[in-house]
């Protein structure tokens, strides 16, 4: 096995796997990456490199294109073919005279290219991009894991979060096509609501078991306690925002957490806001949340049909719900039905399987 070196200098950066059959190129790249603060492991052939990637220690691979035995392209294809636990960002190192073959590299699943001889500034920037992509995926998985953890206290909810975020995505995408919302909802908004809507009930971690898990309808006093989950959730996320003020998605998640039980006519909680004083994300999540609650079985009720849920939501147009969101729901009915069918609780999977399935939760981040 041609593993040349391994380090553990407690770097906070993602470790990088360097693959090149030329030990001189490896030496200089390794030295430069260490100067840049990366942990580095090196391999001189594709087969060894693949074993290291499969071991799961590397999310960033920088590989030479031309190598005897398994080439960089073949290594890249192999990495893409395997179901690995996380996305591997693959950079191919290539000569200037192979520029015309970049399409081949992209087709093999490479994310980026660095031309030989490498420029250290370019190398630094491209690795930062790689780290950003990899950390986004980690962030998304952590957010969803937290949401699932909070939800796991309530055995009734099943795949509620999976359906919820899909419903939210469908509604946001539909609204983005309308003249009223096209300048408000862009692709980033859709991604963010998909990412953060599973956190809407994270405040339920602060609700006592005898209220949260009560097998029946809540008394008025118990309902007052249950209503606190929106405040607890927003306060929790506020603390996270305080620790990381630049994380816009946390503000988005906080707004969803406190506002998804507000009602369009002002009769909701916790603040009793009405109309567009309620954040748009909260108005979208409200429809998605209620639709899912209506169409799934709970301890106090059977699952309603889509038609019944549709009728209840339509009745709430302008009172409980924003009329624009209800109209979007009606335009997207078929997609709601399809999502419900695809993510039905009757086909529940264990938590670990769900988390693995959500390792790359954002469709737009699928490898090319």
């Amino acid at each position: 096995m041609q593993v040349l070196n391994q380090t553990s200098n407690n770097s906070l950066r993602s470790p990088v796997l360097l693959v090149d059959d030329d030990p001189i190129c490896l030496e200089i790249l390794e030295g430069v990456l260490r100067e840049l603060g990366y942990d580095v492991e090196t391999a001189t052939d594709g087969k060894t490199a693949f074993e290291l990637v499969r071991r799961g220690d590397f999310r960033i691979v920088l590989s030479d294109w031309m190598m005897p035995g398994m080439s960089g392209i073949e290594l890249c294809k192999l990495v893409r073919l395997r179901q690995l636990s996380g996305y591997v960002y693959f950079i191919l190192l290539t000569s200037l005279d192979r520029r015309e073959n970049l399409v081949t590299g992209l087709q093999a699943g490479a994310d980026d290219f660095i031309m030989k001889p490498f420029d250290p500034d370019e190398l630094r920037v491209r690795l930062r991009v790689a780290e950003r992509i990899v950390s986004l995926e980690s962030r998304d998985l952590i957010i969803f894991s937290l949401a699932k953890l909070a939800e796991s206290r309530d055995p009734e909810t099943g795949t509620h979060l999976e359906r919820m975020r899909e419903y939210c995505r469908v509604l946001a995408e539909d609204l983005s096509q309308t003249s009223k919302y096209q300048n408000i909802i862009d692709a980033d908004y859709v991604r963010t609501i998909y990412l953060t809507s599973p956190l809407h009930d994270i405040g339920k971690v602060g609700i006592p078991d005898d209220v949260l898990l009560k097998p029946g309808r809540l008394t008025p006093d118990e309902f007052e306690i249950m209503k606190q989950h929106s405040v607890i959730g927003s306060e929790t996320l506020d603390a996270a925002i305080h620790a990381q003020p630049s994380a816009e998605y946390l503000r988005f998640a906080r707004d969803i957490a406190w506002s998804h039980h507000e009602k369009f006519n002002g009769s909701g909680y916790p603040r009793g806001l009405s109309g567009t004083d309620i954040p748009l994300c909260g108005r979208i999540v409200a429809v998605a949340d209620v639709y899912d609650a209506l169409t799934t079985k709970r301890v106090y009720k059977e699952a309603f049909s889509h038609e019944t849920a549709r009728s209840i939501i339509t009745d709430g147009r302008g009172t409980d719900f924003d009329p624009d969101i209800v109209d979007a729901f009606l335009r997207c009915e078929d997609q709601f039905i399809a999502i419900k069918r695809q993510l039905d609780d009757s086909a529940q999977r264990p938590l670990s399987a769900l988390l693995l399935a959500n390792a790359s939760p954002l469709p737009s981040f699928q490898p090319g």
Partner: protein
Amino acid sequence: MTHSLLAQSPTTDSPLDCDELLARCLGNADLVERVLARFRGSIDQELDALERSLDAADAGDIARRAHRIKGTSLTVSAHRLNECAQRLETVAMSDHLDDIHSCVEDIRQEFARLDELIASQQAMRGQSCKY
């Protein structure tokens, strides 16, 4: 810290662009030293392998080895060696193999120049710690 090679007046005739190499190594003269030592240590092996391919008249293998030398020379900023390797790769991949011996000879000479330069700098560094 000054790289001892930089003390020399750079000329277009120099087999090594030390400024470029030092910049590629982010100014780390120790790294430059290690890379050049490894490069120097590989020269005999590369030439032997090239000779064997030449004796076997294996044009494909010669082209592959030339490509590798081309990549290495680019990385260490040995531009003249890179040009020689580029020519050898082109010739080995063409139907005109008559020039192949002269191309290999060019590479051998360029390797010798680099070996001499790096050896002299290593000796200087040993005496005066200029790296």
